[in-house]
C-alpha cells in the first residue's frame, strides 16, 4: 500500500497532456479578446487587422464624440441603470424565493419548472412575446418596463438555482438556536441567515448585473425607442468599419472586469470579516 501511495504522488504523464490542453483552452478563451485589446490602440490610419499602424488613443477619443458612433454615452448609462435595477430586484426576489422553497408549498414545482423553462426558451421568443404583448395592449415598450421584465426572466432562474444550491447546504440549527434565544423571524433573517448567505448574494448580484448589462436578444424587441449598449454595439457591427469598434469592446470588457473584481473583492472582505469574528 505504501508503495502505491508513493507512486501516486508523482504526476502521471496524462497530467502534462491535460495541462497543455487546458492552457490551449485558456488561450482560445482569451486570445481573441487580447487581439482586439491591442488593436484598439491602432494608429489613426490603421485598419481593422494587424499590422499596427502606430499607437494612439484616437479611437477611444472617437468613441466619445457623439456623432461618430451613435449614442455611446446614453446607451451606456441606460445599460448601467438597467443592470443595477435588474441586480437589486433579482437579489431580493431570488432570496425571498429561496426562503420560500425551503418548505414545500402548493405550486412549488410549477415555479421551479417555470424557472427552468425561462432558462431554455430561446431569448428571441421572450423578446417577440413581450414585444407582441405590449403591441396588442398598446403599451409603449421602454427599457425600464418591457426590457426590465425580459431581463428578469433571464436572471431569476440563475438567482433561484444559486439560492437552491445555498440553502441545500444550509444548516437550519443556527436559526433554531436564534429562535430559542428569542429572536423574531425578521431578526433571525437579519442577524443569522443574511450574514451566512451574504457572499452567495453578492454572486447573484454580479451574475444578474453582468447578464443584464450584456443582454442582447431579449432586449431586441423590448427596449423601445432608446438603445441599450449591446444594441448600440450590434448596430455598429453592421456599419462601423474602423477600430472604434475595438475601442468600444475594450472599454465595455474593461468595465465588466471591473464589476467582477468588485464582486470578488467584496466576497473576500466579507469572508475575512467573518473569519475575524469567529
Amino acid at each position, binding site marked *: 500500500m505504501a508503495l502505491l501511495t508513493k507512486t501516486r504522488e508523482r*504526476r*502521471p504523464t496524462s497530467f502534462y497532456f491535460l*495541462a497543455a*490542453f*487546458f492552457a490551449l*483552452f*485558456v488561450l482560445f478563451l482569451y486570445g*481573441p*479578446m487580447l*487581439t*482586439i485589446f491591442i488593436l484598439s490602440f491602432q494608429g489613426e490610419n490603421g485598419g*481593422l*487587422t*494587424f499590422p499596427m499602424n502606430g499607437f494612439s488613443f484616437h479611437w477611444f477619443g472617437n468613441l466619445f464624440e457623439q456623432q461618430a458612433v451613435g449614442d455611446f454615452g446614453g446607451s451606456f448609462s441606460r445599460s448601467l441603470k438597467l443592470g443595477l435595477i435588474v441586480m437589486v430586484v433579482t437579489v*431580493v426576489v431570488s432570496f*425571498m*424565493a429561496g*426562503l*420560500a*422553497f425551503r*418548505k414545500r*408549498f402548493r*405550486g412549488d414545482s410549477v415555479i421551479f419548472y*417555470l424557472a427552468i423553462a*425561462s432558462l*431554455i*426558451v*430561446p431569448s*428571441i*421568443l*421572450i423578446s*417577440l*412575446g*413581450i414585444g407582441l404583448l405590449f*403591441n*396588442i395592449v398598446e403599451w409603449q415598450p421602454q427599457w425600464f418596463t418591457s426590457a426590465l*421584465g*425580459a431581463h428578469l*426572466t433571464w436572471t*431569476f432562474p440563475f438567482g*433561484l438555482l444559486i439560492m*437552491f*444550491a445555498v440553502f441545500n447546504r444550509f444548516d437550519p440549527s443556527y436559526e433554531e438556536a436564534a429562535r430559542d434565544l428569542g429572536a423574531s423571524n425578521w431578526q433571525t433573517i437579519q442577524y443569522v441567515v443574511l450574514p451566512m448567505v451574504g457572499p452567495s448574494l453578492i454572486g447573484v448580484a*454580479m451574475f444578474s448585473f453582468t447578464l443584464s448589462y*450584456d443582454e*442582447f*436578444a431579449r432586449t*431586441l424587441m423590448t427596449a423601445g425607442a432608446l438603445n441599450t449598449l*449591446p444594441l448600440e*454595439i*450590434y448596430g455598429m*457591427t453592421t456599419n462601423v468599419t474602423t477600430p472604434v469598434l475595438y475601442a*468600444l*469592446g475594450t472599454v*465595455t*470588457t474593461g468595465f*465588466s*472586469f471591473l*464589476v*467582477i473584481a468588485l464582486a470578488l473583492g467584496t466576497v473576500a472582505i466579507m469572508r475575512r470579516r467573518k473569519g475575524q469574528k469567529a
Partner: protein
Amino acid sequence: MASDTSKRSSYFLISPMALIFAVFLVIPLLTIVVVSFWDYDEYRILPDFILENYKYLLGSSVTWSIYLNTLKYAVLTWVFTLLIGFTVAYFLAFHVRSLTWQIVLFMLCTIPFWTSNIIRMISWIPFLGRNGLLNSALINLGIVDQPLEFLLFSDFAVVLADVHLYTLFMVVPIFNSMMRIDRSLIEAARDAGASGFETLKSVIVPLSKPGIAIGSIFVITVVMGDFITVRLMSGGQSASVGLQISNEIGLLQYPAAAASAVVLLITVLLIVTALLRLVDIRKEL
C-alpha cells in the same frame, strides 16, 4: 395554525417571482401562440383564426433546409463543447490537487462568460479575417499561398464562435458532477486493477452523466435559438431558425414570426424532454 402561517409566508415570499414569470414569460408565450393564428398585411396584425402561417411555414422547403442547417450548428457545437468541456472539467476535478488552484483555474474559465457575447464574436475578426493573424501566419509558414477565405463569414466561423461562447456551459455542470464523485470509488477501481482509461470509461463518465445532460441542454437550446452568432459570423450567408424569426420581425410579419417561434419552441422542448430522461435536475443542485 403554525403550518397555516408558514404556508402563507411561503406564498408571500414566492409571489414576486411568480408574478414576473406570469407577466413576462407565460403571458408572452401564450401571446405568441395566439398571434401565430392571426392574419397580417403590410401595416398591421389582424386578429383572426387562420392556419395559413403554419401551412406556409411547414410547406416551404426553405424552412426545412433552415432547420437542417440549425441542427447542423447545434450538433457540431454540441460535439465540440462536450469534448472540450469534459476534458477541461476532468483536468480541473481530478488532476488539479489543491482546492485553491481548482478555484483559481475555474474562475479563469468563467470570467469571459461575464463579458459581452457580441464583443467576443467581433474579437475573432482580426484573427480570422482575410488579412488576419491566422492567414498571415499560414502564408508566412508557407502552408498556403492564398489567404483562406472560409475562415471568417462561414459555417466554420459560426461553429467556432459558438464553441468559444458556450463551452463554459459544459464545463460548469460536468465539473460539478465530477466533484461529487466519491474519490474512494476511483481508488477501488484502481485497486481492482483498472487502468486510468478504464476508470474514466466505467466510473467517471457514467457518474458525470447528469452534468453532461445539463450542459447538453444548455448548449443545444442556446444554439437552436441563436441568431446573432449566425448573422455576425456567417456574414449573412447562412440562415438559422432564430435568424429567420428575427428577419420576419424586422419585416413586421409578426404572425409569421410567431408561427416560426411556436415550431421552434416545440422542437426545443422535445429535445429537452429527451435529455431530461437522463437526469433529475432538482437532485443535482
